[in-house]
């Protein structure tokens, strides 16, 4: 019998600790598939961040360095400059990348560091218990925005894929989602493009993946998945915002 589906070799054979309906696992898988398909697992270094995403090393069978909150792009810069022959990626959440780590992400992108950033945007701080994130949507209730996010008080959500696309050092910037088979297939293509650009030495590549956090949204997995399509995608449109393929 022909096997048509299996665990990517870049992922370990372990049970997930992520909550039911969480999209981290799907995004992990897409990154692992890209590594397998390019045959780069043995020379890839992951830079974990702070939050649920820190457990990168528990799932990926690769070398990993843990970064302080928000600093993964700086840590990745150090790794890549020290070992230019490796493939380096960061995996960061929205609080990590778009709040406390704003400086590090913008400057790493602007330098055109030859790294790939996987940015998981679930509009909340997951690990600390669902506080308001820089990407929390207008009116969205969280444990620190109990009356809903007020643009006047808190500012508008960051649209990172668009923001970074304006910087010359960025070779690729795209926003994807994993809430439907169609979107997963699109997301896989984008993730592969991001890693391919690094392999080709084109510069900084950025993937923003919209994700569900049912636990902190106070929703069951199915409605949470539904929310990604109904509320998030209209506000955070999917698409490629920067592509230097033909430059």
């Amino acid at each position: 019998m022909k096997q048509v589906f299996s665990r990517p070799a870049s992922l370990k054979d372990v049970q997930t600790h992520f909550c039911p309906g969480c999209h981290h696992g799907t995004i992990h898988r897409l990154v692992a598939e890209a590594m397998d398909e390019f045959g780069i697992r043995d020379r890839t270094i992951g830079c974990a961040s702070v939050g649920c995403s820190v457990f990168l090393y528990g799932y990926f069978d690769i070398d990993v360095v843990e970064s302080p909150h928000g600093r993964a792009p700086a840590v990745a810069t150090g790794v890549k400059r020290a070992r230019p022959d490796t493939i380096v990626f960061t995996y960061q959440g929205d609080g990590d990348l778009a709040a406390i780590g704003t400086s590090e992400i913008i400057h790493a992108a602007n330098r055109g560091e030859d790294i790939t950033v996987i940015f998981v945007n679930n509009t909340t701080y997951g690990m600390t218990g669902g506080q308001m994130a820089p990407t929390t949507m207008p009116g969205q209730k969280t444990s620190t925005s109990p009356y809903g996010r007020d643009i006047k008080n808190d500012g508008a959500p960051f649209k990172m894929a668009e923001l970074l696309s304006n910087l010359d050092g960025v070779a690729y910037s795209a926003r994807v989602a994993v809430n439907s088979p169609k979107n997963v297939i699109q997301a896989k293509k984008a993730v592969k493009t991001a890693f391919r650009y690094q392999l080709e030495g084109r510069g900084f590549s950025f993937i923003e993946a919209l994700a569900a956090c049912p636990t902190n949204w106070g929703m069951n997995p199915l409605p949470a998945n539904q929310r990604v399509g109904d509320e998030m995608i209209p506000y955070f449109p999917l698409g490629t915002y920067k592509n230097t393929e033909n430059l």
Partner: protein
Amino acid sequence: MSERLFIKGNEAVAMAAIEAGVRCYFGYPITPQSDIPEYLSRELPKTGGTFIQVESEIGAINMVLGASAAGVRAMTSSSGPGISLKQEGISYMAGSELPGVIVDIMRAGPGLGGIDASQADYFQATRGGGHGGYRIIVLAPGSVQEMYDLTMLAFDLSDQWRIPALVLADSVLGQMKESLVANPRPKADLPPKEWAVRGRGEGMQQNIVKSLYLGDGEMEKFHWKMHARYQELAEKECRWEEVQTADAELIVTAFGSTARIASTAVAMAREAGMKVGLLRPITLFPFPKQAYAALSEHCKHFLDIELSTGQMVDDVRLSVARDADVAFYGRPPGAGSLPTPEELFEQIRKVYP
């Protein structure tokens, strides 16, 4: 034979880093240490190394963390306000058992303070500086030659013990010019960096550099392991200098630039017939307790001098015999506060038994 140069202390640090094989320097401009990034921006690329002027001190120390995790020699430098910002990264490096060299050319504080020489960051340096309960190796040069020699030593000690190392100098040592013999890097038998992330390779184990310990008892175990390492470090790596201590009735103790001024005052005291010696700690962590303990068996009078209201004096008092007396004279940092040899000689006369 090595040639004799006439250069600034900051340049000596930068030269030593290159001689020690630094591959990556990440820094941010701040007075009075900017000669270090300036020198390395010019010279490090010639050796194939990486120089980045980073957007922030926080970014810089985290790049050091990344490069060091990847197994190469990496370094940053700054002064008080910048060193405060780096404490986050230093804590993570200590927690991840990563080597790395940080150079602190102290200036006056707190806050923006000023650019004059200071020793008021002794506590920040020797008590870890960041959160979580850890120590780092602290080396205190007293001359341009030592700025060079101790920077090279910092890399070796840091690699050997897997503890970040701080070279703690001040604007006097950083900015003054002296003659220097640029000795070649000493041979050191250092352990291979088998823990580094470099891509796991075919059939190899996954390497993880991390400071998160959530398992039952894991964090506690880590603390006791590091505690034992700090104790072993204290047994093996303490360094200090003694001048005319054998017959001394009073021992003056000071580190760095203050020790240089104090040594002139000690010579003046000898000239005046007083039996005065000098004890200059070179490692501030580990603190050379044993030198104070041994000397205070016979000499019961100490005078600690610092460019602060008194910080190292706490360590001196904890190190001397219980019946020894430790006097203190301090000039807190700021414009015009650097003491003269005559001023310190006067203090010696006051407390001389």
